[in-house]
Every structure is written in C-alpha cells, then in structure tokens.
C-alpha cells in the first residue's frame, strides 16, 4: 500500500490520503482526469468497481472504487468533490472505464453533477421533465413540484454532451440519440423477454440491430434515498427486493458491511448457514436463468424442467425462512431463525438429484443444434471489454475473465472451501450459459462439503439494541448470482446511514447491451439479454 502511496504522490502531489480498510485518496477536480488516466495506465487500476454520488452538504462529489485485476485485486478509493451546488461539473471518466457511462448518468440523475465530455448526459432513471435531484440532502420532495405526470415524455431523443474545448471552456452540445431516418423498434417495458419492466429502443436495419438505447427506471423505488431515513435493521429488507434471485447474497453483503463497521464477530454456525443459503440461492438463480434462456429461444419445455428443480430449492427456503421469495433471513450478527429439522435431508436430496437433472438439461436443450446455433458466436464480448465494462459474474467468466469475488476477496468461510472458479473462453452467449450450468455443479460441491459440517452454537451474535455505526465509510463486496454486488455505507455516527449505495451487477450488465447487440439480429438481442441474465429490480434500485 505504501508503495502505491509513493507512486500516487509522484503523479499527483496535492492528493490527500486517509488510511482505512482501503487506501483513500482525495484529489481536486481539475487534477482528476489526468490522475484517473495515470491510475488506469500506470498503476493498472483497470476495473472501476463502484461510482458513488455523494452530497456532503458543503460540497457535491463522487467516490470511485477502483480495483487492479493484475495486482491481486487491490482496491483504492478516490474522492472528487466540487463546492459549486448550482452547476457542479466533474470530468467524465467514461472514456477510460466504459462502465462509467451509465454510472455517471445515474449520478447526474440523482445529484445533478454534470460530467464533462460524457457522450450522452441524459437522466438515467427519472423522466427528463423531473424537477430537482432527489438524492441531494436539500431536495424538496413536495409532490406538487413533481406530480404524477400523465403525458408521454417529450423529446426522448434529445441528449446533451458537455464538451470542453482547448481553453478549458465547457459548452453544451445538443445530440440526438438516434438518427432521423432510423427505424426504431421499441422493446418493452411490457415485453415477454425483457425479464421485467425494462425498455430497449433498438434502431434496426431490416432485422439487423444498429444501436440499442436503454431506457430504465420504470420500477425504480429509490431504495438508496429511503435507506437514508431508516435505521440499519430496517434497511435490510430492501436487499431482498433488488435482485430477488440473489436475495441471500445481497443481504449477506449488507449485513457483513454493517458487521464490519461494528466490529462484530458472527458465530460459526451462522457463517455456515449463510454460505449454504448463498449457494442454494445461486443454484436457484442459475436454474431460473437456464429456464428463461431456453424459453426466450422458444424451447418452452426446458423452462419447466429448470423450474421443477428450482422448486426443490424454494421448498428448502420456505421451510427454514418461511418464504419462497424475499426470505428476510440474514440479520445483523447472524441469521434470524434456526434451520428447519428437514434442512440437511432436503439439501442432500437436491445434491443427489442435480447431476442427473443437469444431464437431462444438456440433452434436451444444450446439445440441440438449433440452440447451439442460436447462442454460439452471438453477443461477443472480449475479456478487455468485460473488464472495462465491469461485467462480473457468470457473464464476465464467460469471457474468460477470472472475477469470482469468492476467490478474489474471500469473505465469510469461502477461503476454507474447496471449489473451482468456472471459466469459459467462448466470449459468446453460449459460454455465459455454460458457465451458469457448470456453476450449479460447483455450488452443489460446496453444499456437499458443508451439509454434514454445520456446527452447533448460537445463530447470531449479541448486537446492541440501537445500532449506531461510527463515523466513516465501508465498502463490502460479495459474489451474487449475477456478479459482484457491493454495498457502500457512509455514516455520520447517527442511527441511520448518511448514504447507502448498492453497486448492483445487473446495472453494469445492461450497459453492454448496446455493445454486444450491434450487428446482430433482433432475435439475437433477446438471446444476448437472456444470456447476460439481468434482473430489472437490481438495476432500478
């Protein structure tokens, strides 16, 4: 860490350091872009893990979490702040890390920070006629200012870019999302294959897709804003409602982040239960993904086969957690209830049956020549692009990028477990699909190791009645079903957080739709979407 510190001092002498769990650097806005470039090129921080918009009342700004994939996944935090609240402007890094494209649009949407040289500075979630920036601390939530509008959004195609010229002057340049003569097909928000209320606008030439514009926010619930007004135990239930197919992992992440801040030791029994639940969730999620991919390609029967086994997992959840979805199982310090007496028996039954069922899936769907033709060489995403767009999880591993958080930043008891990180080098939709199928086997392997090794003991640690986090910021990552899920908490010592940010994997996944769909056909757009396997509530937090 000190070595990095020295090198940063050389690059940017005015940088301010702060020691914490991760090296923290604050740079001034004018130096930011050059510093970012040096971080990426010289210090090899090639992965932009999180972009968190912030309102510190006296200033607005952004906190960037960067990771170096070549240097043992070392992380660094960079804070950039501007004091101007009327017209805050920060240089965009979307040309360095393409993942920042959508991330910065989200920050603009909620904090009103304009990013200089960003190619497409539109709001991401809210309507373009929304007044104010809702995550600012001085936001006026009066419903008269933003009534429920019953008319269509006008000027949907208008975009703007704040371009800086040679003298450092910034001027707004109008842009159009689509060309005048483009034939734009609207896919969603009500569409069978967008897996939720997602909307794509695809410019097509015949059947060939030229450009995809992602329009999001149809089910945005403002979870991050809501969290700021709640106590820590009250926030927990939100995580189950983001990526509902990674409910356990997401909640595990938030609990770990709070536990880390409190310095809480979680009992061994709770750790084992949490990891088992995480892996069951992963199996259930990948089974659903298998079913939906098959369904989107038109093979309806395979869909039901996937659901048949998923039902077994859901039954296990139902018995122990009392619910099949939104399980609300992890709590700060452990888990909420002890295991059902049938738990071990049911898990063993599942592990026993899965290998033969996987064979059946491969027989009915994977091996089918039509399925292979539909998925192979469709939606190519190179490893470099996967890193640049921060496509983690099975989709990233389908591009042969080793990015499993369970291996890179082992948390809970994962370091003790014997499992392999599944990699495929096809870089296409088929590779992503195959990673998921093989990950089911790995999850079964983890479950088999733990099912007879659940130690006795308490299921949660003693926690104070009123949970107050000390002042500071924490960031925790887990490997959710669809990629690396991160939780950022900034606390000012109160019983409710000053700022909570959820870095969801699906947000990044949808960011590559344009890149991966260009030049393919409308039918491929559906295949690519299915193979990336995004869950909409995870994008629309």
């Amino acid at each position, binding site marked *: 860490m000190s070595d990095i510190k020295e090198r940063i001092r050389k690059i940017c002498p005015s940088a301010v350091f702060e020691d914490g769990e991760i090296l923290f650097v604050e740079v001034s806005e004018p130096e930011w872009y050059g510093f970012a470039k040096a971080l990426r090129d010289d210090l090899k921080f090639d992965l932009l893990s999180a972009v968190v918009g912030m309102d510190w009342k006296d200033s607005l700004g952004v906190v960037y979490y960067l990771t170096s994939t070549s240097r043992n996944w070392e992380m660094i935090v960079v804070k950039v702040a501007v004091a101007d609240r009327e017209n805050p402007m920060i240089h965009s890094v979307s040309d360095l890390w393409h993942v920042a494209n959508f991330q910065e649009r989200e920050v603009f949407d909620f904090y009103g920070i304009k990013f200089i040289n960003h190619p497409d500075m539109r709001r991401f979630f809210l309507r373009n006629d929304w007044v104010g920036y809702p995550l600012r601390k001085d936001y006026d939530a009066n419903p008269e200012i933003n009534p429920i509008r019953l008319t269509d959004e006008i000027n949907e195609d208008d975009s703007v870019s704040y371009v800086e010229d040679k003298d450092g002057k910034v001027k707004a340049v109008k842009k159009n999302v689509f060309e005048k003569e483009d034939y734009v097909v609207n896919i969603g928000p009500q569409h069978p*294959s967008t897996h939720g209320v997602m909307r794509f606008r695809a410019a097509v030439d015949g059947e060939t897709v030229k450009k995809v514009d992602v329009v999001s926010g149809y089910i945005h619930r403002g979870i991050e804003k809501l969290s700021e007004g709640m106590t820590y135990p009250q926030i927990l239930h939100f995580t189950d409602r983001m990526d509902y197919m990674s409910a356990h992992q997401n909640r595990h992440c938030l609990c770990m982040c709070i536990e880390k801040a409190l310095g809480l030791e979680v009992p061994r029994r709770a750790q084992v239960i949490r990891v088992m639940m995480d892996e069951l969730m992963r199996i259930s999620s990948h089974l659903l993904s298998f079913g939906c991919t098959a369904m*989107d390609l*038109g093979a309806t029967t395979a869909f*039901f*086969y996937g659901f048949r086994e998923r039902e077994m997992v859901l039954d296990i959840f139902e018995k122990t957690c009392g619910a099949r979805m939104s399980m609300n199982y992890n709590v700060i310090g452990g888990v909420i209830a002890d295991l059902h007496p049938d738990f071990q028996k049911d898990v063993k039954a599942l592990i026993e049956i899965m290998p033969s069922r996987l064979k059946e899936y491969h027989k009915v*769907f994977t091996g089918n020549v*039509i399925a292979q033709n*539909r998925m192979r060489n469709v939606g190519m995403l190179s490893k470099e692009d996967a890193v640049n767009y921060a496509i983690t999880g099975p989709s990233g591993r389908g591009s042969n990028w080793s990015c499993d958080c369970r291996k890179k930043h082992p948390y809970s008891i994962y370091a003790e477990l014997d499992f392999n990180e599944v990699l495929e080098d096809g870089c296409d939709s088929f590779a992503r699909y195959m990673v998921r199928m093989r990950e089911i086997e790995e999850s079964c392997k983890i479950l088999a190791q733990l099912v007879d090794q659940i130690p006795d003991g308490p299921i949660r640690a003693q926690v104070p009645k009123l949970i107050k986090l000390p002042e500071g910021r924490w960031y925790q990552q887990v490997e959710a079903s669809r990629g690396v899920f991160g939780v950022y908490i900034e606390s000012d010592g109160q019983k409710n957080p000053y700022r909570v940010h959820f870095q969801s994997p699906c947000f990044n996944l949808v960011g590559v739709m344009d890149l991966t769909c260009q030049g393919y056909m409308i039918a491929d757009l559906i295949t690519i979407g299915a193979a990336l396997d995004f869950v909409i509530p995870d994008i629309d937090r």
Partner: protein
Amino acid sequence: MFDFGIWTSWFNNLLTGCMPGWAATLIECVVIGVLVLATYALLALFYILYERKLCAWFQCRLGPMRVGKWGLLQVFADMFKILIKELISLKGTDKFLFKLAPYLVITSSVVMLACLPWGRGLQIINYNIGIFFVLAVSSVGVLGILLAGWSSNNKYTLIGAMRSGAQMVSYELSLGLAIITIVLFAGTMNINELVYAQNDGWFIFKGHIPAIIAFLIYVIAATAETNRGPFDLPEAEHELTAGYHTEYSGIHFGFFYLAEYLNLFIVSGIASLMFLGGWMPLHIPGWDGFNEVMNWIPSIVWFLGKAFFISYVIIWFKWTFPRVRIDQMLAFEWKYLMPFSLANLVLMAVFVALGWHF
C-alpha cells in the same frame, strides 16, 4: 369396408326425387357448407385441447383440469370468451385490409379442409387437379398474414409479416417439390385416385427411399408453412410479442388462432394422403387375413388417426426445439432443403423410370 357414398347418394336421390335438380344442388351445398364449418370449429377446438394436453404432458404438468372432467370443456369456455370479446379498432390502421385479413386466412384454410379425403366416399371436392388446387389455395393464407401485418400499423406486426412472407414463400417450394415427387410416383393429382393407388401399400412403403426422403422434407416444410415451432418466427412471442396478429382482438384474433390449428390438421391430413394412404387401411399384399382385419376399422378412423399422429409429431417439435433465427431459417431452406428436394425429385424420376419400386 363401409362406403360413405351410400349415405350421400341416398340423400342425393331423396332430394332429386322431390324437387328440381337446381334446388337439390342448392340444398346439398348449404348442408355441406354447414357441415364443413361445424367440422372446422369442432376440430379446431379438439386441436387446441389436444395441443394443450400434449404440451402439459411434455412439461410435467396436467394442463387444463378445472372446466369439465379433465378440463374437457375448457376450450368451449375459451371459445365462448373469445366470441364475446370486443373487436378493438385502432388509430392509423388500414381499416378495410385490417378487417379483411383474418377472413382471407380462414377462408383458405376452410377450402383446404374441404379437399381432404375424410373416408371412403366422404369427399367434398374431387378435382382431377386436387392436390394442385390445395397447394394453390394454401398460398392465399400468406396474403392474409401479410395484410394483417401491414395494415396494423405496428412495427412488430410488420416485422412479423415480413418474416412470414419470406418464410412461407420459401418453404412452399420444398413443400410443393415433396408433393410433386409423390405425384410423379403416383401419376395422378386426383385426390381420390391417389388414395385408391395406395390400396396395395402406402406410398411411403411403395416408393421407399425417395418417398421417405420426400416425407421428411414434407414434414419439415409443413411445420414451417404452418408457422409452428421451431419455425414460429412470424409470431415469435419472445421477440415480437405476437408477431403479425399483435393488434387483433376478439374473434378476429380467434380466426388466426383457429386457422393456425386447422392448418396443422390440414398439413397432417395431406401428409397422410400423400404418404400414408389417406383413409386407406394398412394393406400388405399377400396378407389377406391381415388386410381383412384392417378393413374392419372404419376409413374415417384411419384418416383421423394418421392425421392426429403426424400432428402429434409436429406438436412434439414445437415444444422441444428452440426457435431458429430468420437468416438460419432461410439458409436452411435455400441452401439445403430445396436443393435436396430437387435432387430427390430426380431420384424419384429415376426410380419410376427404372421400375425400382414396389
């Protein structure tokens, strides 16, 4: 074997005995028209239930179970619901063509139904160019689909209609060539004569290699012709929500829906006519006892049984296979299926010329 011709000629004699010839013909036409439409509706209902039960079976489900015993009355309830639904008219549509399209589709399918050999003496239209007529009428259905897609003023329907046009025109070639292969073998296009020619063995056995190839080509092309999976691109519910009939409601949608199911029956019926003997029982030359036993099964049961069996295979395809992509589908037809059917036609000509058949 019972000849249904006895009933029909009795009815004809009864009418001509008590009224002038034109009046008798008029009444017969009306009676047959009503019968055809009734058969059409009932068969469509049966097919909807048939497919729902079959796919439920493939998918480890039960299918409809609530209305009537084993859900037998479900389809009647559905059809009643569709009949009472509002016909929604939309802004910006071509009103006349929008309303015309479903009728074109259903008319072509009803006319084809009338050409099928239902049983011995049970045939409505008996042309000397019978099978050719069926092929010609089947092409009218495409027009209805194209018009539906165009007149709806919707991008999904237009893409669906374009796909449909490309697909049906392409696969009609293979379908026609497969049928011509059998016409070449039989030496007739008359449907009745085609059936009688299979008295001493079905064409698929008599014509062996080229006939079996033609049968396989026919089944693939027929699946594509009826817009069923894996060739259901014009509808492609996961891409185009419902393809060319996205904007239709009520019975107008019902017409497309019924026509789709009936076309499945019709292509199966034609397959049974061209390859499996139509209503002709399974006869093996020399096995007289066996042939007698087969003759006891009524001809209409033979015909329906064969048609349902082929439909079963096509339904099986649909629920198992993923959907192909438009370019793959066209490449498959133009690069493989059509050259193959042409070669098969030549092969059949050689077999017929040299007498290498039974």
